[in-house]
């Protein structure tokens, strides 16, 4: 299962990130996980939110360059070594990970968000190894 990720292009300028968050706040879009990566000139804010479509619409209305793309949200046990085991499976399947970030919600479970170089193939790997993936809505339900 693939989940929706909301990505926002942000110039490196004081207050710009706050402006993005303000748009989300005003439209009651809740952030479940985020990753902010940057170069000297600009950054990409990647978000898992409870209402991705609404978030994108409102950001576009407010002049932000944003995009919905598909990523995998994978449920793993909240214990040492579980992320390594997941990556080993993906590596054996020959798929490259473009980026990854994580969140842990409950005592015994954690989630990682990752973008694979090959979306179809990673689904096969997940099926073969019986790895559980969830939707961003599902994630929201856990809160």
């Amino acid at each position, binding site marked *: 299962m693939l989940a929706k990720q909301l*990505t926002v*292009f*942000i*110039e490196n300028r004081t207050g710009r990130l706050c402006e993005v968050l303000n748009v989300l706040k005003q439209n009651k879009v809740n952030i479940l996980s985020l990753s902010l990566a940057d170069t000297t*000139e*600009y950054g*990409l804010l990647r978000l898992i939110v409870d209402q991705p479509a609404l978030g994108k619409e409102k950001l576009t209305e407010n002049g932000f*360059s944003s*995009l919905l793309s598909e990523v995998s949200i994978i449920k793993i046990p909240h214990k040492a070594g579980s992320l390594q085991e997941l990556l080993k499976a993906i590596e054996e399947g020959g798929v490259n990970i*473009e980026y990854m970030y994580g969140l842990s919600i409950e005592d015994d479970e954690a989630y990682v968000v990752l973008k694979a170089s090959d979306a179809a193939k990673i689904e096969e790997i997940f099926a073969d190894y019986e790895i559980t993936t969830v939707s961003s809505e599902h994630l929201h339900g856990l809160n």
Partner: protein
Amino acid sequence: MIWSKEETLPREELEKLQLERLQETVHRVYAKVAPYRAKMDAAGVKPEDIQSLADLKKLPFVTKQDMRDTYPFGLFAVDRDELVRIHASSGTTGKPTVVGYTKKDLEIWTECVSRIACMGGASSHDVAQICFGYGMFTGALGLHYGLENIGAVIVPSSTGNSEKQIMYMQDFETSLLVATPSYALRLAEVAREMGVDPIKDLKVKIALVGSEMLTDAMREEMHKYWGKDLLITSNYGMSELMGPGVSGECTELCGMHINEDYFLPEIIDPATGEVLPAGEKGELVITCIKKEGIPLIRYRTKDITRLFYEPCKCGRTFCRMENLSGRSDDMLKIRGVNVFPSQIEEVILGVEELGPHYEIILERDGYLDKMTIKVELAQSTDSFSVLERISTTVRNKLRVILGLDAKVLLVSPNTLQRFEGKAKRVKDLRNK
């Protein structure tokens, strides 16, 4: 449709007419305009020396500076009583340049614009919305009278209040848009923001664009926003010569036909002033051969183009000038390389993910010039590799075309300044 029979005169007859008119004009200005007499005397040329069109090159040039030096009416060839209208350039640097029209001048102006409107696909069935600023600027009133003369319905909406412009387009079923290319793009953006699709919800079929360069890339960008079926023709003019109506593109889209029975074109090397043969690129010089108010002789337009005399499929015999590729005074000197902003624009518009709005910033870093290009991202991405590819593509293309390295700065949509008239895209901070 061809508006008047003069447009198809055989070249021989046309040249005979041009010579008669040139001789008459030169005699008249020599007799009536003191600064001209002084210039011609200094150059050792008398009106009688003009025996053929080739003798034109004996006459001295006139520049914008000459108009400023004689501000406001020094180059006028008629008494104040004969004038019926005054226009002036914006005069962003120093005094404006002032031009005056007699009744006959206004008739010719209307005639010239009627021709270029028909050339560009307009007809009496059109509803023409004029999104040029009305006032001292010649653009709006020139197109206004010319289009009205061919029987189109005029919507004199001027510039600004873009939401209202879109409302007029919807409610009046505007079929023809008069605007600068950049404002036409801005209007499409505003329409989309209002939930109006310029292609489906509006009836604009023709765009007569002018007062700004129309590059091929800009034309493509306009098609992207306004639909591939929009007929876009550019037209050319300047207040010093008359206003719009000096030349216009016909529907064959192969350059702008110059109204040669009123305007005599030459191409010169901007550095030496030497006349270049047909087909070579250089600065356009125009002589007004049938003007009463202010008949400029060998006026240096500063616009860079070339002329083609081969017959056009449309049937007109008037020569064509290529769409402008720059202005000799817009030309930037960066690390010793001559750069026209239009060259940079071509590169930017060739990259799919980039929007049409950009800014060129020039700075001095020690003894070296540094060029930064800010450009809006039109399509978003979730990957740095895409952003890097965009920047690298622009940099590489600029390096190939100009031999210069530039820093490319991607910015969010709608963050760069928008312009309703001529776009000012270059910020030269090198001497500050």
